[in-house]
């Protein structure tokens, strides 16, 4: 571009965006308590749950979100606004219980504002008393959708075992306030800061053919 207009005021967004008083009570206004213990769920069930968070906002310590495909409290990541943070999304999508180390599954309504006890650091380095564990490696032959990639500070869910031609993965994550919660192409698999983490106790899906992985059903179909 040979000449560019210089715009006098440039929006600046760094750490600690200013919250707006009107948004500070979004959680208090819209969220409610609804949850129940459930039997073990499948990975597909967890993914369907996480799917609703796509296109919603991000909120540190959250959270609570609707399904209107927009961030209802933009530029306010730390004031009781709409959306999960990264570890809160994993907590709710994995149907974890709100007791440290508890096994079993618990469904939290998307509109219940809850984060759970686990931060990204915990997912990155889980101890043996937790209902999730670090995988031995990040090879594609090891990971399965709804496993997580975690580092100190951030965690995201592998949305599918399929991957784009460029490499990388489709990751469902609460990425940040500016970009919100959504599915992005990420290279966490090859980033040395990240490890792969698996939730324990998934239910096994119905399998009528070859089942190479215990909780996922795959089927090869020849096209003549």
């Amino acid at each position: 571009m040979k000449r560019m207009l210089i715009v006098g005021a440039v929006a600046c967004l760094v750490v600690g965006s200013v919250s707006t008083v009107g948004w500070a009570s979004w959680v208090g206004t819209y969220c409610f308590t609804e949850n129940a213990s459930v039997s073990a769920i499948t990975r597909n069930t967890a993914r369907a749950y996480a799917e609703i968070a796509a296109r919603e906002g991000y909120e540190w310590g959250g959270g609570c979100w609707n399904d209107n495909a927009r961030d209802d409290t933009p530029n306010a990541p730390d004031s009781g606004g709409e959306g999960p943070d990264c570890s809160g999304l994993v907590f709710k999508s994995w149907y974890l219980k709100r007791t440290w180390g508890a096994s079993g599954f618990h469904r939290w309504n998307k509109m219940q504002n809850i984060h759970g006890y686990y931060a990204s650091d915990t997912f990155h380095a889980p101890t043996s008393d937790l209902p999730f564990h670090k995988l031995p490696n990040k090879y594609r032959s090891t990971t399965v959708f709804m496993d997580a990639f975690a580092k100190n500070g951030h965690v995201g869910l592998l949305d599918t075992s399929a991957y784009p031609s460029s490499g990388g993965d489709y990751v469902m994550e609460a990425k940040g306030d500016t970009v919100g919660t959504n599915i992005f192409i990420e290279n966490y698999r090859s980033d040395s800061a990240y490890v792969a983490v698996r939730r324990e106790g998934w239910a096994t899906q119905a399998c009528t053919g070859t089942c190479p992985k215990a909780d996922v059903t795959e089927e090869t179909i020849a096209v003549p």
Partner: protein
Amino acid sequence: MALVRRGALSRAVTIGVAGAMVTLSVVGAMRSTGASVAGRGLRAHLLSANRPGRTLRLYYTPPVLVRAGEQVAIPVDAVCATDEGDQCATEVGISARAGDEPWHSALATAAVNPRFDLTDLASRARPSGSVSFALQATDGAGAVIGLGTTRKDAGLRFYVVDRMPMVSMPAVPFGDVRRGQQVLALPWGSGPLQAGLELGNESDTVGPMSFDVDSEGRVYLLDSLQHRLALFDQGRLTGQLELPGVLFDIAVENDGSAFVLSRSEGSSLEVRRISPSGLISAAASLGEGVPGQIRVANGRAFANLLPLDAWAEVPRPGDGLGPAPAVHIGRPVDGGEEILRVARQDSVRLGTVSEDGRVTGAVELRSAANIGEVALAESDGAGGYWVAVHLWQEAPKAADQYQVVNVRGGEVLSSFAVPAQQFAAAPPQNRFRLVGDSLYQMVSSPEGLQIVRYQLGGAS
């Protein structure tokens, strides 16, 4: 042993009835809220007002480029969720054909993750050299979504080649990296001479999402956190423009214009053209999808649509993509060709598609280290390619870096490694640019952002 399943649809299509695949969404995801439809041009195929809203998403792993005689399978993954976040069942189907043969179809039953085996079709791909296919998923309530169609220019495809030499990337120890020459350095902060940063706090650390460089070495920085496009000439800010939406990628044209890919507040992806004088066009809509790349070729802008995993020409300002636009599997480049690149589990495959649809220059690069993504794949102007491949290891110590390789005629001409230095994450496909004989990389540290340059041609 492959498990063969065929439904009635399969038999009907083998008679030669094309068009079993309806015209469907090209971006592979849609959300319906009762009568209100988020997708474009798909009302005929979506739920009625009496049914609950659904989200339907379709993923697949594209083969892109295969060697004659090898097995070819396409894993497909359909996601179906109600508005309450409950799973709904789906059926996944494929239509495919070799060359101009009749279409063949197959269906997968619900609750499975199918892999469609197209080895037989691939064996019949010659002399066309390609297999066309389209994917479709339906939920139990009648919603339909697809990737590609049976229309010739809107279908997905993969190419079959007789010759694809295998070449090993020279091993470069992790940490043995070349440092580029700094072209631009910006500290983190807010202001014209800073780069916007959103520090991760149970979130990713996000900075500028992309950049491009023109033929005169000027850097166009997409400073997403400051909602601007900033132009730097030899490190000096010479202009900036405020842009709407979440900014994801930029491509600069030879005439000084630029195309910016962004996401609007309503989560639709769109592209704006910025003229050399700084005028911002109306947005061209790409619909919903996963943010990919934008590039220019032959004076036109092309967007990589995901999860369709194909390139489509960006519509005119104010227009939207039709439900089944013409797509290219390879990235269009100047001269009318397309660059194919696919990252496989243990190799990278490259090829060039000519205007008549034939593949030349196919090559497979292997590495002793684990292969991540192909961060850059460009023609070297002499029948070969420059690539930047993300390599990684977990033992004896977790490490990763990019290896830059020039491969031509089945031979590695040069190779060196550069660091994967990303304090602030940029999308994996936006970290490198090749301009002339210079490779540019966007890196970041706790101190700020840098654009560095590597002079090509003399690498060891």
